[in-house]
Every structure is written in C-alpha cells, then in structure tokens.
C-alpha cells in the first residue's frame, strides 16, 4: 500500500487521487504537536487533539511506501507537512533500540519499504544537501528500508510521479 502526503493545491490533489488511494493533504488545518508523549503513554497511537491528524500515525505506520511532496523550507519540509510528521510519532512505541548503530524507537507496525520525498520551490545547493541528509535520517527513524530524495524544478513536470 502506498500513501502520499502533499502540500499542493486542489488541482494537483485531483491528479494525485487518480494515482493513489491514500492521500493525506497537508493543508495546515490542524494543530501542531505539543510534545506531550500522550500518543505513547496515555492513548497509544492516538492524539488528544481531535482533528484530522488524531490517528494519522496509524495510516503512516501501516503503509509500505510513503511519498512526500513538499515545498522546500531551508532544506526541510514545509511547516504544514512537518506538522503531519510531528503528529505521527505514535507509529513507533516508547521503547528504544539500536538502529543504524544509534538509538531509535522500536516500530509499532514494523519495517516499511520505501520513503520518497519530492521537494519543489527555490532551493540552494546547501539546502539540497541538508534535505538529502534529513530524508536519510527520517527513513531510519520511521523504519523505511530505502529512501530517495528528488528535487522538482517545476511542478508541471512532476506528473511523472508514480
């Protein structure tokens, strides 16, 4: 199963919907993470804030392949996309283990296949480097076995995303 998280407008959402069933629209109509760890310690894999991201960690946790389409923001995700990722840490458990010789949380839903990130918008070389590194780290953190980062120069050419 494949899931797409994107911060594009409705026009592109229609195109994406034809290609993938599970679309998470990062429209910013939700609250940011409050860092309470409640999704581990109080109501596992759920958030106390009852908005569209309440159980988003379950959707992301169960997917085999995750595609993120985001505007570049200093070599990182746009705030609205990052908000979705911040709210999804319930996909792991409070327990810790070693992964890639460093400490990480164990995964509630096990390992996943691939994380692909497409970034668009103005982007410097340093930001591309940062983003590549960020995606590598995120893949380890969320338990993806492979990852790919691609810069999209123009969104109209991006219809090749599959």
């Amino acid at each position, binding site marked *: 199963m494949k899931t797409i998280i994107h911060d594009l407008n409705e026009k592109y959402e229609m195109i994406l919907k034809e290609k993938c069933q599970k679309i998470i629209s990062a429209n910013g109509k939700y609250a*940011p*993470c*409050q*860092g309470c*760890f*409640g999704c*581990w*310690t*109080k*109501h*596992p*894999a*759920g958030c106390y804030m009852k908005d569209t991201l309440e*159980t988003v960690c*379950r959707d992301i*946790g*169960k997917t085999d392949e995750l595609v993120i389409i985001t505007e570049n*923001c*200093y*070599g*990182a*995700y*746009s*705030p*609205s996309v*990052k*908000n979705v*990722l*911040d709210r*999804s*840490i319930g996909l792991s*458990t*409070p*327990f*810790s*283990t*070693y992964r890639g010789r*460093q*400490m*990480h949380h164990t995964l*509630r*839903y096990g390992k996943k296949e691939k994380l692909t990130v497409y970034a668009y918008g103005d982007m*410097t070389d*340093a*930001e591309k*480097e*940062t983003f590549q*590194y*960020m995606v590598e*780290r*995120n893949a380890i*953190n969320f338990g993806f076995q492979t990852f790919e980062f691609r810069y999209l120069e123009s969104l109209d050419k991006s219809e090749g995303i599959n």
Partner: protein
Amino acid sequence: MKNQRFFNRKFVPAAQIRRLWKGMVISMKTVFINGSPKKKLSVSSYLLGIVRMLVSGEVVSEQVRNQNDHKRVLENIKDADAVVIGLPLYVDGVPSHMLAFLKEMERFCLEHDIRLKVYALSNGGFIEGRQNKPLMQVLENFCKRSNLEWCGGIGIGGGVMLNVLRIMFFVYLGIFVLNVVFAGIQTGNWLPMDAVQHFAKQLGIILFFNLGVFFHSLRMSIAINKGVGFGVKFTRVLLPSFLFILAADFFFVIISIFQGGIFKGWLAKK
C-alpha cells in the same frame, strides 16, 4: 577627488561601529527564544537559562508556542544584537510551529534590514547529540536566506533526562533540608555530616551527567559576550547509550502506568 574617495571608503562596517559603541556605552541586547510548545518543564528553557546566566548586557526571554506569539517576539528582536534559539528536536528537524516562525522571521528581518547573530540550543530525546545535526543545518540555511549571521549551536542528546535530573536535584535538596531540620531539632546538631556527605554525593552525580552541557553552555555564553562565532558542537547526558536506553524504557513504563496507556494496547498495532 582624493578627499571624496577618502570619505567613501568604509574603514569599518557600520554595523560593527554600532556594536562597538553599544558594547561600550549601552549594553548589548540578547533575546532568548524558547521554541518549545510546553508551558512548563521544557528542557529548552532549562538550557537557555544556563546560557543566559552568564550573558552580560540586556537579556530578554521569549517563547514561541503558536502564531499569536510571532508579532511580539519579532518586535523584540528588532533592536537586538543576538538571538539564542532553544528548541526541541522533532522527527530529526525543527518543530513545525517553529518552522512557521522562522519563515515569518526571515520575512521580517529582510524587510527591516535586521542583522543579528543567531545561536542555537537544540535537544533531542535520543542520547546521541549528533542526531541534532540536520536541525543545525536547517538553521544555518535559514540564516543564509535571512541575511543573518549563523554563529553555531549546541546539539544535545538525552534531553528528557536533563529534565529528570533537574527535578531530582530539587527532590534531593528538599530531603537534605528536612534531614538537617530533623537532626537539628532532635540532637541539636544543625550540621549532620552524614546528611551533608550524602547530599554532596547526589549533587556530584547530577553535576557529572550535566558536565558536557555545562561546559559547552559556558563557552557559548563567552562567545555571545564577545559577539563571535561558536561553531556547531554536540554533547549529551554523560551516560553510555545502553544504560540510557534502559533508563528511558524504565521512564516510559512508569509514566505509562500513571497515565494508563500501558493498559490500553500499549504496543498494539491499532
């Protein structure tokens, strides 16, 4: 003609003269921005507090918890010389509400031609300080875009434990005071050496775990006072990672029992 060229030459950039002048006559202003969404007991505020203690001149503490704070904080940095951003590590990067703030800050700084020195203090839950590296790079990229001077920061591992240690310090202090009072009333000896020794030992252990943090914080305070770059440094709670993992697991079991999550499909696939 020659005179004209003489006056056009910039011997010292205006910003440096201003800084020198302010340093001598008016005190420097440093704004400490806490990027944690937590109202109380945030590790970021603890770390900012340590660095702040030794920074001279005018110091201001601010917190960005949501959009309502943006305007107030930005107005405060308008006439500042340096900002220190303290923030937690969320999914290898800057928390989303702080990314939104950084975008606002970029727009504001470019619009008002504000030149600031930017320092950062980030803390992650994992023990390796190095896991803060992507976040530091993001902040550096932010400074380049905003025409601000990136002065580096400290990436700290084991953030939650710093908080636990902070609470333990006050618990130990309380027990020590009680011991002294009881001993004083009962025996008339107001300085029971065994209680003093016990407390000194506990204090020593807490200090030891914090040594890396204190050392780099001190160096950052000095760098801020001098107005120079600091570089990016990584440190952690001084505990081997396998012991830290055990401590973290224990911590989450206890919290989950109290909050009830352990009885609600704690590790289940929901």
